[in-house]
């Protein structure tokens, strides 16, 4: 005991609500640690799904419908079956279990039997020795279709005489908010503004294509490997489709080359189909969707038509908000609807539509409607980017009408601690919105720049005009259903190292690193001492999906609980070795020491060795159930999500008056993240989300004609390149979330949300014309400028 423990003891702080004790002074959490997979990635050594070697595997392929809506009258697979090298051709009747998959409702046929509902629907499956043979076999399958009238817009689809996409009709869900009295609210308002906004289908455009390896086992069990955002939902779907128990299906996640919500859906799709072929042939199946097949067939961000009406007093106080959302679900339900009470894209969009503002009278109606288009699913922001564009455009224009600076109008009405949301939720903690506004305003020099911005007159005389714009936003942490629980197992080894078994997936967002940091901090070891075991449903506790910006918060809490269990064993062993009572021992930085005499300590690994030798507990299990979610179906009143992240984004743009081209010069954005577990990775989430938001603002749109996607590959579906990316200054602030590990809340999706309106509001500031439809591509901006010109002339 000659070494000196120089650590200054800091006081412990009890966390509320059953979350274990943590320290004010942190060793690993809050530090920009290098991500645990960085070296493998930078050396090209990490094996993604497509890199798994499996030379004996058969190749699986899907025959896809060329019609948006048609009956299948007859399928003849004889010729395909006789092609040498073909090992299986499957149609709907070959499915042993349920013929349907889906994130929430299994309404999408794994193989369509009687009818197809969008171009890309699966009609038959083929397994063959080579890809060439499989493709040839697809061409030999003869399908007789009877085309049906199709419906391509949610407005048309709700008409009584509209073609029915599903038996039960096209209206899939209605969601509402009722608060106060809107009629009275409009009477009491001095100013009323009503607008309609539209946003298109957009593609996730993760760079890694979907791929799956399905391996059948002699006992009827099956293993499926691939990039999946939620191995547990993939597993449940495979079990249903094969008609076997869930415990016979093993899903193993491979490193994900980008997901953004897309691989929540697509992994179910490709996974169940590959599993079916593996079951049928008894052979390993490799299945890959190429870029165009992904765009053609997998989920998108929901397009919406959003009508809003806001009423305010002369001084800018918001009085009333009325909104209506026509949310296009497309052919299948995916994550449009969700579990009770507040799961799914649709309810989330409805809850988010009034924005982060205190408004006493609110009425929102949201209609989720089937069409014969591809389907909307989970995509970064989960319904929020769409409605944020609406409320932030509306509030900005209202400011113009009131003659107020849009910053101060927002500041006057936005949430703070103690505010009540449109659903009647009391925000009693962790609301850093006003702080984020102030920080952004300062860094951006808003007041100064706003003064310099064009006076919006005399367009003709200038070639390029600059403008500034802003938007604020809120986003939930969690999924808003009762099934949001999360489990983790920590296995202590005798040398003090730890294995972390859990099911949150790594898709680039850095979950392995952040969760390791939390585990290391909680156990008093270093980051290097923790290794995350690849999520594998056979060994990981069900952790739910890696969505909803929930991973750090929910899994972090489960890890803290698991760590406490192991710590108890370590402390008992250290107590034996040191002769100090357990209640005086602190575990930190690989040491266990006496709080009253920090120089009295033992190495953590000695304590681990002692625990092992004495047969003490070497594993800790943690299960975290988040605060209960509530939302009344009829009134939309309740507390749907237990905590929210807030942000402010300010953009400066330059608009070319002659071409309508918009260049984003700079974006400054501030996020209240509760606690930045890894600051450099928080910055990465902010910058990446904002550039994706810039794509949403200016260029991204799936172009559909009669149900046919016109831009299937990345040549025509344009996403931002390095040349489009402006300077982005990310700022984060920490308004502690009492429900989060070390105070953290989610950051993954928030950055993607207010970027589009910040940019379009800046465009309006530059040219004096508002854009109501996304994307604000050059043609649309040019036409808007033209309309103004004509007015001026």
């Amino acid at each position, binding site marked *: 005991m000659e070494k000196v423990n120089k650590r200054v003891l800091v006081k412990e702080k009890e966390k509320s609500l059953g979350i274990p004790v943590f320290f004010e002074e942190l060793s690993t959490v809050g530090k920009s640690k290098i991500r645990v997979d960085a070296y493998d990635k*930078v*050396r090209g*050594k990490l094996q993604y799904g497509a890199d798994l070697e499996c030379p004996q595997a058969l190749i699986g392929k899907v025959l896809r419908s060329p019609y948006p809506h048609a009956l299948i009258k007859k399928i003849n697979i004889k010729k395909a079956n006789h092609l040498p090298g073909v090992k299986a051709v499957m149609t709907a009747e070959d499915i042993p279990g349920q013929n349907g998959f889906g994130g929430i409702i299994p309404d999408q046929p794994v193989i369509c039997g009687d009818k197809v509902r969008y171009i890309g629907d699966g009609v038959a499956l083929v397994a063959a020795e080579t890809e060439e043979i499989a493709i040839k076999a697809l061409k030999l399958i003869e399908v007789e279709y009877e085309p049906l009238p199709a419906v391509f817009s949610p407005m048309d689809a709700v008409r009584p005489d509209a073609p029915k996409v599903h038996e039960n009709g096209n209206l899939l869900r209605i969601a509402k908010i009722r608060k106060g009295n809107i009629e009275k609210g409009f009477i009491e308002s001095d100013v009323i503004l009503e607008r309609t906004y539209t946003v298109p289908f957009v593609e996730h455009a993760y*760079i*890694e294509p979907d791929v799956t390896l399905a391996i059948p086992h002699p006992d009827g069990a099956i293993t499926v490997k691939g990039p999946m955002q939620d191995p547990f939902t993939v597993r449940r779907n495979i079990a249903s489709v094969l008609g076997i128990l869930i415990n016979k299906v093993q899903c193993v996640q491979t490193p994900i*080359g980008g997901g953004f919500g897309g691989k929540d859906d697509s992994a179910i799709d490709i996974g169940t189909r590959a599993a079916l072929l593996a079951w049928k042939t008894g052979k390993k199946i490799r299945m890959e969707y190429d870029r165009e097949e992904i765009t053609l067939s997998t989920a998108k961000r929901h397009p919406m038509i959003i009508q809003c009406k806001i009423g305010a007093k002369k001084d800018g106080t918001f009085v009333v908000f009325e909104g209506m959302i026509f949310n296009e679900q497309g052919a299948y339900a995916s994550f449009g609807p969700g579990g009770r009470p507040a799961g799914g894209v649709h309810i989330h969009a409805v809850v988010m539509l009034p924005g982060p503002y205190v408004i006493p009278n609110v009425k929102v109606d949201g209609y989720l409607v089937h069409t014969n288009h591809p389907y909307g699913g989970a995509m970064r922001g989960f319904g929020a980017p769409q409605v944020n564009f609406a409320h932030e455009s509306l509030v900005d224009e209202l400011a113009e009408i009131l003659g107020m600076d849009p910053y101060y109008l927002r500041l006057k009405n936005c949430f703070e601690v103690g505010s009540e949301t449109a659903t009647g939720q009391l925000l009693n903690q962790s609301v850093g919105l006003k702080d984020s506004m102030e920080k952004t305003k300062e860094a951006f020099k808003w007041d100064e720049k706003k003064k310099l911005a064009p006076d919006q007159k005399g367009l003709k005389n200038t070639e390029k005009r600059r403008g500034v714009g802003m938007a604020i936003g809120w986003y939930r942490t969690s999924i808003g259903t009762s099934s949001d629980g999360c489990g983790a197992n920590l296995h202590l080894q005798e040398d003090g190292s730890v294995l972390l078994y859990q099911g949150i997936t790594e898709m*680039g967002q850095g979950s392995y690193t952040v969760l390791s940091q939390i585990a290391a901090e909680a156990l008093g070891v270093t980051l290097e001492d923790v290794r995350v075991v690849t999520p594998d449903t056979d060994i990981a506790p069900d952790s739910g999906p890696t969505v909803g910006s929930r991973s750090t918060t929910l899994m972090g809490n489960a890890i803290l609980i698991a760590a406490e269990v192991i710590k108890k064993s370590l402390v008992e062993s250290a107590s034996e070795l040191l002769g100090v009572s357990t209640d005086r021992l602190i575990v930190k930085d690989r040491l266990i020491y006496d709080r009253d005499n920090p120089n009295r300590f033992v190495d953590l690994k000695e304590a681990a060795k002692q625990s092992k030798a004495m047969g003490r507990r070497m594993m800790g299990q943690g299960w975290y159930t988040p605060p209960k979610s509530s939302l009344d179906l009829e009134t939309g009143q309740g507390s749907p999500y237990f905590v929210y992240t807030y942000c402010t984004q300010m953009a400066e743009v330059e608009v070319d008056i002659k071409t309508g081209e918009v260049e984003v010069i700079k974006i400054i954005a501030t996020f209240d993240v509760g606690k930045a577990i890894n600051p450099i990775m928080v910055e990465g989430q902010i910058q990446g989300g904002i550039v994706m938001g810039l794509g949403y603002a200016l260029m991204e749109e799936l172009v559909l004609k009669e149900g046919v996607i016109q831009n299937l590959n990345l040549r025509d579906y344009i996403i931002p390149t390095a040349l489009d*990316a402006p300077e*982005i200054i990310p700022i984060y602030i920490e308004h502690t979330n009492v429900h989060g590990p070390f105070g953290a809340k989610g950051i993954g999706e928030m950055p993607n949300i207010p970027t589009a309106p910040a940019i379009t509001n800046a465009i309006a500031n530059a040219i004096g014309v508002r854009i109501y439809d996304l994307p604000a591509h050059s043609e649309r901006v040019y036409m808007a400028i033209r309309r103004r010109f004509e007015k001026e002339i």
Partner: protein
Amino acid sequence: MAKEKIQLEVNGKKFNLKVNPDELLVDVIRNDIGLTGTKVGCREGECGACSVILNGKVIPSCLVPVMKADGGKILTIEGLEKEGELHPLQKAFVQKGAIQCGFCTPGMLLSAKNLLDQNANPTLEEIKIAISGVLCRCTGYQKIIEAIRTASEIIRNQRV
């Protein structure tokens, strides 16, 4: 189809291969040579994940018929490190948080390497142009650009 004999020098190592003449370079690199660090994202030269350096030029290897590369010198992501020592670009990517999902990383690194080989002191605009052929959906490019700037400084200092 009859197989053709070709020779490729990949990361300083010579490979004598028998290939189908209609194969693409990316598939030969991944399947025949077994270097899977080079990725496939779109197969039409748009995403740049398959970028390699062929005879001193960055090319999307999904667009190059393998016969066109016969006799050529190729550098892939696996060839960037020398005797276990990472290239300054690799180190900078790690340090500066330039990696998220990692799927575009090979294309980014090789595009940046090619730039710095020709111009050790690039401007911001030159960096952006050099990596504009590689799509990244995760990072927003900021930290990648920062990493390339850091590496260029380190390389310049090494030369002094």
